């Protein structure tokens, strides 16, 4: 990527170049497969599982699958914004836990569920903001800072909760988790809205252009007058915001705030971003890609469970797919 101006449209889709190549040429082009790895993977999984276990394609199972994927989709979007600036946010899963703990405590203190949700989202956004400030002001690598905050937030969550889970028996959250509008449950709509909003922010706002420019060519972007530090801080704050939304969805789903970190959420959020064709070096991103990557990882676990495949094989399958996707990425244009 040379200049930021040709970043945004090019990142939009693989085939959208000056001339539309024929379908055959597309299929023979490795970069097409690289950009659409998550879609191809998802379609492949649906076909395989659909044949092996017809229940997989039942409406009830697909709805359950989407519900289970909602949290990961939201997290992947947050991670995408950070990765687009060539950073990485390792503190995400810990932020989710902190958000959940704060939600539980504020609710238990009798402040009402809406305020509790807002407090949770504010807290995680503040964590993201803090990450961004430390990274840019201290000029420390993202990896190191977020690794540090992962640990610090974990401790904070444990101190606040005393290591005890808090029951959250709110009817509002129960409705959010179990109610549905049209074909999808509310959590799925939350995830869909997040995808749409993120897509607009990334492709149809000045901020989105600045974000990709910051990730692709930080120095040139700075020379063009883009405030790269502010852009980075904003990206981390968005990541924190997504962690907060995920925390609300998680508490709604299980009906309690647990001071436990789901490390697989963090690893899967990064994996979904990689599967979605987002470059870890920044500068190229998509929103739909990681969202479908998250769906694909959830579908993988769902399908293997339906097929009664031993639990021992599931992490192996996820790992193999992620490494395979990363290998394909080498062919990206």
């Amino acid at each position, binding site marked *: 990527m040379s200049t930021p101006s040709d970043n945004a449209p090019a990142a939009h889709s693989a085939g959208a170049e000056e001339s539309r190549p024929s379908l055959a040429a597309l299929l023979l082009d490795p970069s097409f497969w690289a950009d659409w790895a998550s879609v191809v993977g998802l379609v492949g999984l649906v076909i395989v599982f659909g044949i092996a276990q017809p229940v997989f394609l*039942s409406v009830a*199972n697909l709805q359950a699958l989407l519900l289970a994927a909602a949290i990961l989709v939201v997290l992947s979007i947050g991670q995408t914004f950070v990765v687009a600036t060539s950073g990485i946010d390792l503190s995400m899963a810990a932020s989710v836990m902190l958000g959940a703990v704060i939600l539980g405590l504020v609710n238990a203190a009798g402040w009402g569920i809406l305020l509790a949700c807002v407090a949770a989202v504010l807290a995680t956004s503040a964590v993201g903001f803090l990450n961004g400030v430390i990274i840019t002001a201290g000029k420390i690598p993202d990896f190191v800072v977020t690794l540090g905050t992962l640990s610090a937030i974990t401790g904070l969550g444990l*101190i606040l909760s005393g290591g005890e889970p808090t029951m959250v028996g709110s009817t509002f959250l129960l409705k959010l988790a179990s109610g549905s509008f049209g074909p999808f449950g509310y959590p799925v709509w939350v995830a869909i809205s997040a995808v749409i909003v993120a897509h607009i922010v990334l492709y149809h706002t000045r901020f989105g252009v600045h974000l990709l420019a910051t990730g692709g060519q930080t120095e040139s972007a700075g020379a063009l007058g883009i405030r790269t530090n502010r852009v980075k801080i904003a990206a981390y704050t968005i990541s924190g915001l997504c962690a907060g939304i995920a925390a609300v969805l998680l508490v709604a789903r299980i009906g309690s705030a647990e001071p436990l970190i789901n*490390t697989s959420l963090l690893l899967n959020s990064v994996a979904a971003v990689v599967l979605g064709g987002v470059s870890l070096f920044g500068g190229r991103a998509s929103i739909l890609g990681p969202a479908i990557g998250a769906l694909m990882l959830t579908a993988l676990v769902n399908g293997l469970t339906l097929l009664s495949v031993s639990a021992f094989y599931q992490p192996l399958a996820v790992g193999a797919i992620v490494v395979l996707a990363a290998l394909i990425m080498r062919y990206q244009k």
Partner: protein
Amino acid sequence: MRLFNCLAVSASLFAMTASGPAFAEDAAKVAAIVKGLDNPFFQTMQKGIEEQAKANGVNVTVQAAANMGDATGQADRLTAMAMQDFDCYLVNPISVSNLVQALVPVAQKKKPIVNIDSTIDASQAKAAGFAVSTYIGTDNVAAGALAGEEMLKLVPKGSKVAIIAGIVGDVGSNARIKGFKQAVEGKLEVVVMVSADWDREKALTAATDILAAHPDLTGFFAANDIMALGVERAVRTSGKDVKVIGLDGIVDALKSIAAGELSATVAQYPYVVGAMGVEACAVAAKGKELPANVPAPVLLINKDNADASLKNFPRPGGDYPDPFREMLK
């Protein structure tokens, strides 16, 4: 409840020193080292140790690892306590081997070593030149078997059940499942086993998938209560009548059973494990011989006794066998 969290570095470390009432000079001094206090299970155990020490007129000093994964930190604390002059050492190791080296000076001083909850590997201890005086802990296989027997009562013979395991390869989880499988062998069909990493949300997701794949399923056994509560939520959402049995006896599970949601759980009592450990030290201080292995009580809790158990929490809802209590009389 042994929820490992490899990445958790708890900033909260409470090195609490319980100073009991001032007893005569000859009161036995006990050093206790437990696992991470970031887990309610071990907080309860610490409470049991301290309250029993008060009751028996024993001075106790409790130290804990920083968190559930802090194997070396736990050994360092024990090493420091081994330097000091205690009459008896109460140890709950994070792994089978992490405290072996730290216990060598204790063994050289010929002080009794009371091993509670998690075992110390006997062959490694022997290689280091000592043996623990007594072991007190929950027999996970027996606890799993209790859950299996309850499942047999709840569901028709020959019907299908599923198992939700903890972290892949976890010793406690495997032992519980082994016990459950032994109890239902040939009488029920275990159609699937999934690992949900002790995580409530993962258990919910897995149970939803399993219910879709096996519409004729009649029961779930989850290796701990947190996961059982997640499974129960999935069952309630599906609207099916599927029995769910957990294991541990945490408060939320007892409440859920009392409310008619969870079918049953097998309660173990970290409070009693800690308390019996202190009693064992008191027996040793009297110069009596300790039994090599004492099983801690496990009780099946269902709708009939959930309320009583809640009332007595963290103590058992009924009486339990305790050889040390007899020896102290």
